[in-house]
């Protein structure tokens, strides 16, 4: 009887200990935004349109047939940090192993402990739908030799603990650079890290200290507010970032969000956005009329918007990116902001594709990018036409 009691007590203690490990692992999955690609139940299926074709995120539940139920801990560590699956299968860097390589083995192990507790889902996913020759996985050996420099996060002794924690999260598990750092034709990083990049029909904005297009005008507290709630007085997350906020940053703890903010606020300024438009008086005049007719009711004549519901356009770094890809997309297709527990409204922007032609969209974007103190390159009707076509391939 006593023995039985002892055994039960021991079991309770060890399950409590492993529960804590699982919680820590679950937090690692938040930092790494696993749900963003692998789906809410982690059974895969989210499609990623890359310049090389379509990749579909695989099932990472512990199902033995269709998931990763047959992985060992070491298999998982190698997949995360070396991009090599069981049997030597090469992963594609859409799985951000170049960033996860910076994670500590302890964090990866705790993530593995969590993933083994997830409910197994039987779902076969056809992952590799890339075009030839990119669908040949062995080619990734060459890519890895050329571009992959696996290295654990290197502590920067010249910076504080918060900075180092922020740099670790941003460049490691949270893999910010996967979207916010520009890529070469080969899909490797180019240019200054986190200075903005185009992907999947959106422009992931400049996160450096540039005052025009970067986060130079945001305080660290505003960075935290944005990541926590999806919005602040400068901006509202929509598009792919709304998913990142929902699945990842809104669930990060405040200390980690502050650390990320400390790190981002310390990034030196990028080369800027290319400067303001000149010789575009006709575009500005037309754009003012389009703005008054279609935009002013929410974003205000003075471009200041309405606090956290309608984002301001004046002084908004997102409006002043080097590329107007996101802006044109949002005007044409509309957009839906993220809804978070702290900010549950999720305001929407209507579609104007039915009403505004390419020149009118280009004019109003040029206008908002060069009014109220904003300075950014002009937008051409041709650019808008290309974006419209890419968004609505069937009807145009």
């Amino acid at each position: 009887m006593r023995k039985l009691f002892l055994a039960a007590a021991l079991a309770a203690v060890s399950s409590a200990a492993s529960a804590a490990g699982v919680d820590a692992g679950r937090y690692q999955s938040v930092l790494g935004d696993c749900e963003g690609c692998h789906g809410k139940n982690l059974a895969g299926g989210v499609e990623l349109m890359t310049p090389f074709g379509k990749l579909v995120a695989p099932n990472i539940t512990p199902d033995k047939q269709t998931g990763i139920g047959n992985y060992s801990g070491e298999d998982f560590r190698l997949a995360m940090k070396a991009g090599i699956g069981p049997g030597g299968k090469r992963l594609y860097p859409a799985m951000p192993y170049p960033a996860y390589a910076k994670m500590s083995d302890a964090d990866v192990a705790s993530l593995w402990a969590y993933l083994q507790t997830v409910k197994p889902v039987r779902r076969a996913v056809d992952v590799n739908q890339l075009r030839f020759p990119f669908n040949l996985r062995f080619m990734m050996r060459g890519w890895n030799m050329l571009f992959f420099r696996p290295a654990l996060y290197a502590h920067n002794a010249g910076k504080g603990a918060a900075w180092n924690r922020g740099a670790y999260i941003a460049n490691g598990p949270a893999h910010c650079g996967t979207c916010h750092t520009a890529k070469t034709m080969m899909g490797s990083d180019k240019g200054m890290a986190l200075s903005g990049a185009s992907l999947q029909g959106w422009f992931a904005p400049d996160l450096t200290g540039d005052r025009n297009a970067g986060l130079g005008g945001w305080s660290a507290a505003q960075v935290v507010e944005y990541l926590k709630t999806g919005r602040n007085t400068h901006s509202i997350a929509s598009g792919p970032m709304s998913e990142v906020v929902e699945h990842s940053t809104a669930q990060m703890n405040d200390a980690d969000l502050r650390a990320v903010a400390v790190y981002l606020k310390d990034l030196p300024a990028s080369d800027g956005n290319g400067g303001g438009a000149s010789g575009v008086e006709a575009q500005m005049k037309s754009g003012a009329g389009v703005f008054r007719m279609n935009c002013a009711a929410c974003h205000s004549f003075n471009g200041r918007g309405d606090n956290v519901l309608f984002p301001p356009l004046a002084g908004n770094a997102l409006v002043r990116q080097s590329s107007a890809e996101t802006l044109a997309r949002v005007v044409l297709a509309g957009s839906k902001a993220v809804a978070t527990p702290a900010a549950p409204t999720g305001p929407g922007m209507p579609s104007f594709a039915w009403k505004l032609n390419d020149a009118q969209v280009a004019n109003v974007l040029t206008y908002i990018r060069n009014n109220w103190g904003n300075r950014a390159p002009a937008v051409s009707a041709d650019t808008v036409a290309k974006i419209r076509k890419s968004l609505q391939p069937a009807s145009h």
Partner: protein
Amino acid sequence: MSEQRALSRRRLLASVAALPILAATADGASISGTMPWSPFAGEPPKPVNPLGWYFFTPDEVVTIEAVVNRLIPADNLSPGGKASGCAVYIDRQLAGAFGQAQRLYMKGPFMPGLPSQGYQGDLTPAGRYRLGLRALNDYAHATHKRGFAQLAPAQQDAVLAGMDGGKIALRLKPGFSTKEFFEMMLQNSMEGFFADPLYGGNRNMASWKMIGFPGARYDYRDHIDKHNVPYPRPPVSIYSAEG
């Protein structure tokens, strides 16, 4: 009487029996969390094609244009009903859902209703215009030996006033009075004159300019504090991109 009641009782039972079948096809959806959203969402009204006629025959076009031009005569305030596109507006409406009474229950029995209930007969609006315009021309031929459009403006006014005042009875159908036909044409002409130009009438937003209505604008915050100062901007249509 008892046979009729038995019949209606049988019909009632049959229709009740059909209910579960209909209910099974009804669609329901529950939403939780945030409102659903999809890109390019929106159902903007489609602008009508301004050219040609979709419902009226050439004879009817001549007659209805003469009517709208007397109901809204050209003067120093505005162009007339014809130049404003009122006949085009009515034509497109009659060719569409309104003309076919798609919104209304149009099966029998047809019983006389109260005046406040409007027309209760079996004719669709398109059918009423077809019948009414022919009867109007028949009346003009019978009394003046000419079609309505060929009458002098004063004669046209007298005919329309007679229809409105109950002094003229066109050969229509029981349950569809001449006054009802007149009021229908007057109502639809006003709609065409004042509705957004995308529906075919109100060309160049002439009626809005006449009364100083700025149109489909939805933000006056830059003007709201300027008391007793006319709004300076021209009217805009739902389809105006700039303004």
